[in-house]
């Protein structure tokens, strides 16, 4: 299965600032996703990162707040913009090489906004 490198692993940020999270995969993948996991909660899908086009956002998530890039089949970034303490969460990148092959997750980025 694919190996994901997600950076940074954690960060503490000031409110009002932005943080860009990187997801690098060691092989080309069909689909890339970004999730958020708030403390003690399940994973919530933020968006599907589409290669060469705008990401597809889930209800409750907007591009201005969570801009996503995917310039090629092995890399994507998620930016958390104009952060507030409510954005404190773990953000995870996930990839798949096809529905029958399951999904691989990065180790996550633990974000704390103060």
């Amino acid at each position, binding site marked *: *299965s694919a190996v*994901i490198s997600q950076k940074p692993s954690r960060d503490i940020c000031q409110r009002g600032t932005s943080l860009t999270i990187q997801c690098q995969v060691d092989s080309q993948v069909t*689909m890339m*996703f970004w*999730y958020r996991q708030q403390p003690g909660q*399940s*994973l*919530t*899908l933020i968006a*599907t990162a*589409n290669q060469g086009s705008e990401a*597809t956002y889930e209800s409750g998530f907007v591009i201005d707040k969570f801009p996503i890039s995917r310039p090629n089949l092995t890399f994507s970034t998620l930016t958390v913009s104009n952060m507030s303490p409510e954005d404190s969460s773990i953000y*995870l990148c*996930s990839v*798949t090489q096809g*529905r*029958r092959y*399951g*999904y*691989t*997750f*990065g*180790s*996550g980025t*633990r974000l704390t906004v103060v």
Partner: protein
Amino acid sequence: LAKTTQPISMDSYEGQEVNITCSHNNIATNDYITWYQQFPSQGPRFIIQGYKTKVTNEVASLFIPADRKSSTLSLPRVSLSDTAVYYCLVGAQHASGGSYIPTFGRGTSLIVHP
């Protein structure tokens, strides 16, 4: 979208077999059922995937009845290191008819006692 329902928590003891059942009444014909394991501060890890009947690998078994409206993850002889959250996933087609979306339910928190 196929929604899943699992017990919120389960307790077991070392050496016992653990069975976690997931309900997914609205599963679609082309959907696969996938189970993930998540330890604290880590991303979810793929355990097993199946479509119907029984699937077994070196870690677990997955039992799926003919109607596919539920599935049971079976962990043989659990150890303390199996303490984790277990998620049942059923694939769902995106509302726009495009991407395949993995949707997480609340998961089952399994605690294995000595």
